C-alpha cells in the first residue's frame, strides 16, 4: 500500500484520508475558472496534533501541503498547483469558547460562517461577527486568511483585523500561539505584542496552518434596515461615501451597478445599512444620513430609491443569497469576480474600466462593492457571469477577469484574493525589497517549500 496514504491513515484514521480519484476530483477544482489540478491525497484532521503530524510527515516526505476550508475563494487558492496533500480543515469545527463580556469567540479552523452565525443567534443574540456574503458553508478562517470583508467591515476594517488570537502549526510542524493567548488563558488581543499575526494573513496558507482563532464580536442591534441611494454620476460616489461614513451611523455600505434589469441601467446604487435597538434609534440614524446627503438631493443629483418590502427582505438577508442569483444572469450557474481593493476616489475609473472590459470581451457584468473602514478604501468587484455548459462563455469570462486584474493594478489598486497567475502580476509590479522580504520569510518558515506551492512564489 502507498506509504504516504498509510501514514496519513495512521494519523487521522482510514475514514478521513483518501486517494480515490472521485474524491480527489472534488479537491482538484473550485467553482471559479482556474485550471483544475489533482492532489494526491486529501485528509481531514480532527485535532491540532493531527495537523502537526501531517505537516511533520510532509516535511519528512517532501510532499506539498494545501490547507483548505470550503474552497469558495473562486480564485483557485486551494487547488493544489503542484499536487500533494490537501488538508480539509472542516472536521475541526468546534466552537471552543464564548467570552460574552469580552466580546470574542475562540474557534477551530473548520468552523463555518453558518455554524458561527447560528451559534451566536442561539447563545449570544446581542453579538455578531462580520459576516461575508459567501455561502454559509465557507469557513471563518478561510475568510480571514484572504483578508475577507463582511457586514461590519465599514465600521471596523477588514475581517482579518478582528482577530484576537491565533494558533498555528508552522511549516516545520511546531505549534505556535499568537497574541494574548501565547502568555495568558485569554484570547482577547493580538496587540500589544510584536505583530506576528501578519505572518499568516494574506499568505494563502503558504506560511502555516491556522488551527484556532480568537475572533472579535460586536454589538448586534435588534433592528436592521437598508436604504438605497441612487446616483447617475460615478464621480459623486466617493462624496456620498465620505458623507455617510462621516455620520458614523451606518453599519455596512455597499455599491451596486449592473445593466440588468433595465431599470438599473446607467445608475449606481449605494446600499446604506442601518441598525438600532429601537425604532427611535433607527430613525435618528436615518435622519442623520438623510441630512448628510440633502444638498445632493436638492441639486437633483441623487435620491433614495423606493424599496418594496420584498426588495428589502432580499437586501437584508444575511448572507444575501440574491447576490448569487442576480450574478447568475446567464443561468449557467457560474460567476467569477476580481475584487479590487481601491481608494474610493478611484470608483469612477474602475467603473469605466469595467464597462470597457465587458464591452471588449463581449460579456455581461455586474458590479458590487463594499466600503472598508470609514472610507479608507473599498472592495470593487468586477463580476462576470458564465454558463458552465458553454465553453465560449467561460473563456470570455476568464479573459475579462484577467483584464480586470490588470485594470486594478493600472488604476493603483490591489487585487484581493488573486489566483496564482494574478499573484505573479502583483509580484512583478511590487517594490523589489518587499518581494525579497516575502521570499526570505517563506524560506525561513518553510525551508522544505512544502506549503501551498505556486502561491506567492517568488521566482528570482
Amino acid at each position, binding site marked *: 500500500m502507498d506509504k504516504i496514504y498509510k501514514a496519513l491513515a495512521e494519523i487521522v484514521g482510514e475514514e478521513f484520508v483518501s486517494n480515490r480519484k472521485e474524491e480527489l476530483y472534488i479537491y482538484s477544482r473550485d467553482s471559479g475558472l482556474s485550471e483544475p489540478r489533482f492532489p494526491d491525497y486529501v485528509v481531514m484532521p480532527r485535532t491540532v496534533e493531527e495537523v502537526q503530524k501531517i505537516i511533520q510527515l510532509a516535511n519528512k516526505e517532501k510532499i506539498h501541503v494545501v490547507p483548505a476550508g470550503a474552497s469558495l475563494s473562486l480564485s483557485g487558492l486551494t487547488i493544489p498547483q503542484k499536487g500533494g496533500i490537501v488538508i480539509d480543515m472542516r472536521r475541526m469545527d468546534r466552537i471552543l469558547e464564548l467570552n460574552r463580556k469580552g466580546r470574542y469567540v475562540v474557534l477551530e479552523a473548520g468552523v463555518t460562517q453558518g455554524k458561527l452565525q447560528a451559534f451566536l443567534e442561539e447563545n449570544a443574540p446581542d453579538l455578531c461577527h462580520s459576516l461575508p456574503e459567501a455561502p454559509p458553508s465557507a469557513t471563518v478562517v478561510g475568510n480571514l486568511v484572504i483578508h475577507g470583508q463582511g457586514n461590519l467591515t465599514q465600521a471596523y476594517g477588514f475581517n482579518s483585523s478582528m482577530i484576537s488570537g491565533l494558533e498555528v502549526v508552522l511549516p516545520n510542524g511546531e505549534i505556535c500561539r499568537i497574541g494574548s493567548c501565547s502568555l495568558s488563558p485569554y484570547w482577547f488581543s493580538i496587540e500589544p505584542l510584536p505583530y506576528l499575526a501578519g505572518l499568516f494573513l494574506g499568505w494563502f496558507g503558504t506560511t502555516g496552518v491556522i488551527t484556532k482563532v480568537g475572533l472579535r464580536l460586536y454589538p448586534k442591534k435588534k433592528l436592521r434596515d437598508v436604504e438605497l441611494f*441612487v*446616483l447617475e454620476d460615478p464621480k459623486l460616489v466617493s462624496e456620498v461615501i465620505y458623507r455617510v461614513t462621516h455620520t458614523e451611523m451606518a453599519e455596512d455600505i455597499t455599491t451596486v451597478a449592473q445593466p440588468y434589469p*433595465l431599470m*438599473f441601467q446607467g*445608475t449606481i446604487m449605494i446600499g446604506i445599512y442601518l441598525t438600532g435597538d429601537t425604532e427611535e434609534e433607527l430613525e435618528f440614524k436615518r435622519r442623520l444620513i438623510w441630512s448628510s446627503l440633502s444638498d445632493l438631493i436638492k441639486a437633483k*443629483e441623487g435620491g433614495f430609491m423606493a424599496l418594496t*418590502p420584498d426588495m428589502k427582505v432580499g437586501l437584508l438577508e444575511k448572507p444575501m443569497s440574491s447576490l448569487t442569483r442576480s450574478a447568475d444572469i446567464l443561468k449557467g450557474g457560474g460567476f467569477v469576480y476580481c475584487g479590487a481593493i481601491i481608494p474610493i476616489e478611484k470608483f469612477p475609473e474602475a467603473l469605466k474600466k469595467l464597462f470597457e472590459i465587458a464591452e471588449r470581451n463581449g460579456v455581461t457584468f455586474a458590479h458590487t462593492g463594499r466600503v472598508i473602514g470609514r472610507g479608507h478604501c473599498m472592495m470593487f468587484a468586477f463580476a462576470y457571469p458564465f454558463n458552465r455548459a458553454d465553453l465560449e462563455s467561460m473563456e470570455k469570462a476568464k479573459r475579462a477577469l484577467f483584464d480586470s486584474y490588470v485594470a486594478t493594478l493600472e488604476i493603483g489598486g490591489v487585487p484581493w484574493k488573486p489566483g496564482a497567475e494574478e499573484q505573479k502580476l502583483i509580484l512583478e509590479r511590487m517594490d523589489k525589497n518587499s518581494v525579497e522580504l516575502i521570499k526570505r520569510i517563506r524560506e525561513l518558515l518553510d525551508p522544505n517549500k512544502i506549503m501551498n506551492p505556486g502561491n506567492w512564489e517568488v521566482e528570482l
Partner: protein
Amino acid sequence: MQSQNFVLKFQKELCETCPTYDCLTRCQYLNIDTKTAEREIRKLLNGEDSFVLHECVTCYACEEYCKRGNHPFYLITDLQEKKGILPAPKPIVKQWVNLGIPDKKDIPHFYGAEEPVISLCLFPDFVNSIRGKLFQGVSIVLGRHFFCNLVYLHFGKPSLIRERLPKIIENIASHGFKEVVFFHDECYSTFTSYADAYEIKVPFRPVHLFEYLYNRLKELKDEIKPLNVRIAYQRNCSTRLTPQKEHYLDKIFELLGVERVERKYDRENALCCGGIIRGLQKLDLFVEVQKKNVEDMKNAKAEYCVFNCPACYSSLAERVRKEGIKPIMLHQLCKLALREEPR
C-alpha cells in the same frame, strides 16, 4: 404616433372666472391662500414659472378639487416638463423611465381564454390572488405590454405617457376585448380621465375593479359573512382623477359588513400614502404625512387599513402594522368576507 399630437383640453376661461381656486387653496401640501392661488393660477395659464411647479408633491388631488371639470394637475405636469423641472432627482427619474421602456424581450402574459379580462399591469405578484369565487372564469393580462405608464405624471415626464399609450392601447385592443377590468386604479384612470383629457381614443370600455367587485359581490351576496370590523380606507393618488367610481366603494363595504371609520383624512381629504413624497425626496414631509395618516387611523380605532393600490400597500403597510392595524388589499378583504382568505 408623436406625443405632441395630443394636446391637453384645458379651458382657460373656467379658471379666469373661477370663484374658488379650489385646486390650489385646498392643496394639503402647499398651504396656498386665495390671493396667492389666483396669482399662481394666472402664471400657470400664461405658461410662466410658479413655485407650484417646483413644490407640488404630485398627489393628483387638485384634479378632484376642481369642480369645474378642468385639469389643473395635468397642466402642472405639462408645464413641469416644458420647463425641464424635475420633481425628483435625475437618477430616480432615470430608473423610472427605464422601468417602462418596452423591451423586445418582454413577453405579453395572457392567462385564460375569454372575457372578463383583468389587467394586472406590472403586478405579477398578484396573479395568485386572482382566484376563487370572486374571480371565477376571469382571464388575466400582465406585463409591460399593458403598462399604463401614468406614473410619469409624478416625474415631470408626461409626454412619455402620450408617446407610449397608443401602443399600449393597441396591444390591449389587438386581443379584441370589449371591456377590460383594471386591477390598478392608475390604469383605469389612464384609460378614462387621462385619455379623455388628451383626446386619445380608447376602443374598449375600461372597467374599474370596484365596479367588478361590487357586481360580483352582489351575485355572491348569500355567501358573504359580514366581517363586522372597523376599517380605514387608504385612497391612492390616481383615484383623484376618477372620483366618479368612488360610490362603489361604500356599497362594497356595506356588502362586506365593515364600517368605514369616520376620520379626518378620508375621501377628498385623504392623505397620500407617502410613497411618492419619499420618491420625490421630501423626506421630512414623508415622515410627517405617514405619521399623521396612521395616527388618524388609530384615533378612529380602525382595525384594518384597506388599500386599493399595491404601491400604497408597499409604502404604508409596514407602518400601519407596527401600529397594530392590519393592512389588507381590497380584493383580499372581499375574499375574507367570502371566507376565502385566512383572517
